[in-house]
């Protein structure tokens, strides 16, 4: 999994997500979720514990979707056909809609996790330049910016302390406090960005596409097999689900 070309992986996941958007069969979706999780855990070398931890917030979100769709559903066309769901007797249509929606949200989460947990960020960005012809200027800019995130967090803590010690009022409104922090934070972010840009240019970076690569990312037949299998699995899930009904 980690060796699948990141661009192809991203493309496959995106296409799968689009196809799923038009799939309303809860059983087929459930099967596909099972498939995605299995692929992630078996071929992605992801620890189960870590995986479940990441999945938890998405699960809560999906359950939330389920409950709210059940409670605030539109009036069904055939209210007489009902179905036992957990403790309630609810119109079957409502239950189906709600389940389909919640399951879809859940399957998006498993797909995203499949990508995020098995892909190196740097590899993804470098592969975007090499396979998807993304401009190096943009891609290396994102990489450089990525380095800044932890720095900015530290800086915000420092600014907060520095203002505290000046006796700046802490009980002012949240908005004016953010304004107070924004100016020094922005000033230093701009300065840092400028310095990094200068350092990059000083190493001969021009933003042109014409450059060599230390880490080359190629597409091989395994990448295409991965794409075919992931997308083919959707069709398979639909067929299996149909055969049950």
């Amino acid at each position, binding site marked *: 999994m980690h060796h699948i070309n990141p661009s192809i992986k991203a493309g496959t996941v995106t296409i799968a997500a689009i196809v799923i958007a038009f799939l309303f069969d809860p059983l087929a979706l459930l099967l596909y979720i099972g498939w995605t999780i299995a692929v992630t855990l078996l071929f992605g070398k992801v620890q189960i514990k870590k995986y479940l931890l990441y999945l938890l917030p998405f699960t809560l979100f999906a359950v939330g979707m389920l409950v709210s769709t059940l409670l605030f559903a539109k009036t069904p066309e055939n209210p007489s056909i009902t179905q036992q769901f957990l403790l309630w007797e609810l119109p079957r249509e409502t239950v189906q809609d709600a389940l389909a929606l919640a399951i879809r949200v859940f399957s998006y989460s498993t797909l995203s996790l499949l990508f995020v947990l098995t892909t190196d960020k740097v590899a993804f960005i470098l592969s975007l330049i090499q396979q998807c012809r993304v401009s190096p200027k943009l891609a290396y800019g994102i990489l450089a910016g990525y*380095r800044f995130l932890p720095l900015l967090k530290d800086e915000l803590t420092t600014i907060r302390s520095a203002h505290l010690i000046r006796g700046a009022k802490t009980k002012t409104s949240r908005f004016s406090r953010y304004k107070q922090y924004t100016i020094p934070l922005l000033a230093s972010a701009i300065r840092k960005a400028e310095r990094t840009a200068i350092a990059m240019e000083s*190493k001969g970076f021009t933003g042109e596409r014409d450059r060599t690569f230390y880490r080359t990312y190629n597409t091989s037949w395994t990448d295409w097999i991965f794409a075919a299998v992931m997308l083919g699995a959707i069709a398979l899930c639909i067929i299996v689900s149909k055969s049950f009904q």
Partner: protein
Amino acid sequence: MTQALLEVDQLTVTFEEESTPTLDDLSFTVQEGESILLLGPSGSGKSTLTYCLNGLYPKELDGKMSGSIYFAGSKIEDFKSGKINLEVGTVFQDPETQFCMLTVEDEIAFGLENKKISPDLMESEIDRVLSLVGLQHRKKDQIHTLSGGQKQKLALAAVLALEPRLLILDEPTANLDPAASKDLVETIRHLKEEQEITLLIIEHNIDYWLPIINRTMLLDQDGSLFFDGDLSEAVNMYDEELQQRGIWLPEAALLAKQAQLPKPWPLTIDLLPPDLQFQTKTSEVLQKKEQIIQVENAVFRNKEKVLLDIPALTIKHGEFLAITGKNGSGKTLLSRQITGLLKPTAGDIEVLGKKLRRWKTNELYQQIGYVFQNPEHQFLTDSVWNEIAFGQAVNADEIQRVLEDIQLAAQADKHPFTLSQGQKRRLSVSTMLVQKPQLLVLDEPTFGQDSHTTEVLMDLIWRHHQRGCTIVMITHDMELVDRFASRVLIVDQGRIVADDQPAGIWKRKDLSDYGLSLPAKEAYNKRTQEDSLYASY
């Protein structure tokens, strides 16, 4: 005559919003193999010159540039985009903002990719430059795990990979502790022996570079070339002018001046004559007995490890305490703990006889002040005047007096962010002092400042200390420790490893283990003692 590597002819740069040029009619030539030290007061256009030489200007310049620069006989503008950067490499001062990749090898590869080197050759090239700077063992590591000194070596390696003929070092040691600075200079000296490379070194700290440089250029405040020749000549002919412009003299020359030796003054301690007498520190504030800070068993840890472990520490009223040690040893962390800015994971800290958690925040910060490393972090208002007036019941005369004291009266209406580096620093220290705190903590107040700002600052701090303010100052500057501190703490890996008066500290043999060095006076005394020891044999 061989062709000059670099020829600058009547270079003038004027920024759009400025009325006077930043670089004024600059002409000089650089021969292959020279090592040039470029000195100048802050704001004299040293960095601007760097950008002109490596081709960033006029491309990125908001303003006008006239005159011409020839590199190896061709005009810099005639180089293809990106090509001049491969000939002129630059190492900048801030270790945090020079990189765009996440790992050491990728960062070096970035330059090689720009140079369009075949991927097959990259690996060996990366190994070559890493071994030049002694970082082979960190090849696969994440950049953020490197120390400041290692980051600067990586920046150097990344530039060396491009095989430049001219290497510009733009204050590369400005953010390093003394030992890391010496180590970096040693690396560059070694490099210079290994390969033919021309160096242009911009620095505040002349002393480190003495073994390398063979020519000195001085820029004046107005961006014109004021001197070009031998450093010894510059120091001996223009010492007054240099000091007026805030340029640091070599420590040996300062000692010679103090001892009123006749010129010419030597540049290194080794060349000073024996038996010089220096004034020792006279004014010691009478120490009151009460303690202002008391720490008991304070521990601060993050998820992985203990970052600070202080079994006991007492700071008394009227002390001038210097905290020193390597970069990243926990000095700043300690200072944040004793001021309540960061709560310890376990243990007790008392300030003025009251536990930290019993203090109300605003009352506590009436009593103690803290000056942060970056002055901009502390500015709250939109003018210099308002900064001083903020939260204080002081009248206009008082504010005016304070502003004159820190030589900022003319800038009273300016936005604090638009001030120069030294001005910002003076203002931030002053905002803490107007409230007359009982304890003032300063985190590297003189870092990267010119000698002028350092003098003004230390004078200000010293006067408040005389009035009774207890001072805790984090610093790498051993000269300041020697001149001002009444007590020194050395922090290493989150622990206090030494707590003594300066005289006791200088006797230790393990200073370099903690990133420290001897102040010039002590280095001189040590040398003369050793000399007399030899003589007695």
